[in-house]
Structures are given as C-alpha cells and as structure tokens.
C-alpha cells in the first residue's frame, strides 16, 4: 500500500494539467452561484409573502438552515450526481484505452495501491468541489446567523455523498475501456440509489417490511437527513464507510479480473 499516494498524485496532476479540471471547476462554481442566488431569492420571497399574509407562526419557523442552506445543498447534490461520473469515467477506462494499464499491472503495485490511489485522487477533487459549495453558506454568516454546526454537518453529508458517487464512478470505470459507457453505468448506479426509497415503500406495501427496512438503510436519504439536521452519528458514518468500502472491493475484483481474461 506504499504507492497509494503516488497513484493518487498522478491522477490529480493529470486532471490539473488538462483542461478537464478547470472546465469542471468553473462550470461548477457558476452553477453553485446560480443555485445559491435562486435559493436566496426564494427564501426572500417566502419571507415577504409570510409578512404580507401576517402568518407570524410560520414566519417564526423560517430559518436559514432549513429553508436556504439545506435546499442549496440538495440542489448541489444533484449537480454532483452529473459531474462526478464525468470526473471518474476516465479513472480506469482511460488507462485501458491508452495501454498504460500494462504499465500499472506490470509494476510492483498491489491491486489496492491502484484502486485506493484512483479513489483518493477522485475523492480529493470532489472535496475541492465541496469546498466551493461551502463558500456560499459562508456568505450568509456575514449577513445572518445560521447555525455553524448544522451548516458544517450538512456539508459533511454532501461530501460523503460525493465520495459514494466517486466510489460508484470508479467501479463503473473499472468495468470498461470506454469512458462514455463508464459515465452511463455510473449514472445508472446513482439513479438506482435515488430510487431506493421508492423501492423501500414498494417492499412495505408488499408486506415484506424487512425488505423495506433494508432498502431504506441502503438509501443515502435517511443518513443525509440526520446530517442535515446536525446529527453526526457513528452509525451514519459507518453506513458511508460500508458503501464506499463495498464499491472499492468490487473495483478491486474488477481490476484483478482483467488479469484473468
């Protein structure tokens, strides 16, 4: 495992010497700005309306964390869902297409060096993107008083969700030599993840409540919700570790199987 950082470092450097990183970063910043402005405008609009109708109870309930930051994080998680597959699609697929897979697999590296190195490279870039998201609620602290803990734990939820997407994208990339196919597989995996709550309801409706419970646990929703409410619980962190670990294991199996085909 001594070479994890070497592989991760090359991955990051390659992103930053090509236009990909800059295109993604600037696009992402613009989108984050647009969503933030829209969310602020919506929040402002709600306040004005509630005042107009003199709905003081509801006005009392309005706060920056629930009605602005959470909404904003939600929008950004959707943006990440489309951007992350674009970042991860090349992780393994481009090595196969370039022929550099032969260099990696004939070097004194273990499969874990390669898999973890690739994941950490992608995860670091996702952390930079999450950092950009974090700048915007920062502005709110200048003009208002959101809760620091909840703002940060929500951001942690976004980061962990991003890392789950990265692990899925890396796995998708390890299955194919075509980057477009890798992108599509990753997107499908993420959509299945989004549909898990609906599948859980279906399980409950069919009378198999354990199926419902299982799908609800697998879905990221419940875990993100607790983080958005400011609850950082070990069980939720374990959930993220288990999902990321599972996809890392699958990726390792895919990398090793390429030797046997």
């Amino acid at each position, binding site marked *: 495992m001594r070479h994890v950082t070497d592989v991760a470092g*090359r991955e990051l450097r390659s992103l930053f010497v090509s236009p990909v990183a800059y295109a993604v970063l600037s696009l992402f910043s613009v989108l984050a700005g647009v969503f933030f402005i829209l969310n602020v405008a919506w929040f402002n609009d709600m306040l004005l309306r509630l005042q107009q109708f003199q709905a003081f109870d509801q006005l009392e309930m309005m706060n920056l964390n629930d009605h602005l930051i959470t909404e904003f994080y939600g929008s950004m998680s959707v943006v990440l869902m489309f951007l992350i597959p674009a970042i991860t699609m090349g992780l393994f697929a481009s090595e196969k297409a370039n022929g550099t897979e*032969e260099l990696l697999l*004939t*070097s004194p590296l*273990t499969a874990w060096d390669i898999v973890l190195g690739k994941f950490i490279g992608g995860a670091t870039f996702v952390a930079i993107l999450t950092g950009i998201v974090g700048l915007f609620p920062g502005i709110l602290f200048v003009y208002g008083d959101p809760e620091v803990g909840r703002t940060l734990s929500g951001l942690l939820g976004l980061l962990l969700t991003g890392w789950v997407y990265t692990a899925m994208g890396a796995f998708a990339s390890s299955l194919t030599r075509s980057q477009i196919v890798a992108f599509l597989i990753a997107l499908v995996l993420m959509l299945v993840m989004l549909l898990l709550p609906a599948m859980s309801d279906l399980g409950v409706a069919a009378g198999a409540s354990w199926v419902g419970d299982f799908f609800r646990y697998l879905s990221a929703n419940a875990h993100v919700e607790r983080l958005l409410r400011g609850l950082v619980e070990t069980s939720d962190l374990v959930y993220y570790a288990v999902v990321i670990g599972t996809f890392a294991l699958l990726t390792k199996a895919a990398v090793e199987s390429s030797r*046997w085909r």
Partner: protein
Amino acid sequence: MIEARQLSKRYGDMLAVDGVDFSLERGEVVGFLGPNGAGKTTTMRMLTGFLPPSEGTASIAGFDIFNDPIEARRCVGYLPESPPLYPEMSVKSYLSYVAKIKDVSRGERRQAVERSLERCGLVDVRNRVIGTLSKGYRQRVGLAQAIVHEPPVLILDEPTAGLDPLQIQEIRELIAELAAPAKGETQQTVILSTHILAEVEAICRRVILIHQGCKVVDAPLSELTAEGQSLEELFVRETMGRSSAREERA
C-alpha cells in the same frame, strides 16, 4: 535470469502458447521470432506478470511469478507493443512517476530519471508534453520508462516498429549498450521480439523461434548461420514447413 517452464496460455478453446520452455543467463540478448499471432506477445505478457499463464510457470531473477509477483515485477523493465504513455504528462514527470511506482528510492529517483533521459536521447525534450512528441520520440520515452529502474531483465515487444532507419539504428545501439554496459552499470538480460530478421542478426546472440504457440528453434545465432543459411531461410522453412505438415495431418 529468466526461466520459463511449460508456459501455456489458453483463450477458451484456443491454445495461444503451448508449453514453452527456455532459460536465459545474465547478459544474454535473445531475439524472439515468429509469424504474427504465433504467441510472442502473449509469452512476453506472461513473463511480465500482465497475464497469468494457464499452465506452467516462470521465474524472473529467481522470483516465481506466482509466489513472489511483486519481487518478480520489480526486476522487469517492459516495453509493450504500444508504449504505455500518458499523453498529458511531460517526459520528465512521467519518468519520475514510473520510477516511483517501480520502487526507486526517493534519494536515487532524480538521478535515475536523468540517466534514462540521457541514455535514450531525451534530454532536449524533457519538459515537452508527451502528446506533442513524434512517434520516434514516444518510442524512446517508452524505452526510457522500461530502463529507468535499471531492471536486470528487459522485455521489449517490437521496440523498433514504425521507426525510421536512423531511429532504428539508435535504438539498436542502445540495446547493445544495455547488454554490454560500461563498468559500474548492471548488465541486463534482454528479450526482444521483432519481425526484422536483420535486427536479430545485428544485436542478438541467440534466437528463439515460436510458431503456433510452440517453440521450434532455440539456438545461438552463430550455430544457425554457420552452415551458410540465412535467418530468413530458416524462418520460412520452420514456419511454412510446419504449417503445411500440420495441414496434411488434418
């Protein structure tokens, strides 16, 4: 240095390599010949650890490719048919990355990169991005990548394919130099596959010819050409003769 024992590779029903045995001593330069599809690349890939053999095994510098895969791979420099390059990296940062993953220690890395740049004539293009280099230079970067960690064993799959006569000459000189180095440098064992028979005559001292997955000739070059026959005659006789014999049987 290299020991192959009954190496075989099966793809489904097709036997690509069928029980190939050979043993190479330190400092030998061996030409690996055979028609297209004979199993040269597959054999080389098995020796480098890229493909596992279906049957048989091999050892590199005394390390078995199954039992000590990491040690065995550390002892090999490998230039695949198409050089494994990252087009977006610069020559220098690419070589330094390869040195890292080939376990060249931090203190020796800079020197190792400088030496391989020098030996492959890449000093002038060290800061160029690989994607902008000509084919000849890319081939040299591929070779520099294979020798950067000074491995005792070099496996080169068609190192001169697609180069112009001048570049071919340079690469040949480099390979000859690697096998008979100046004092203080390690002597390397080289296996190279090629279609150019003149190349074998120029740099190899021993020839292994494989045909349809089987080894058909394994002898010193001097012995093969002693009776006045050319390598070309031998190649044609061994490969043509055998396939027609095989067809007759079928």
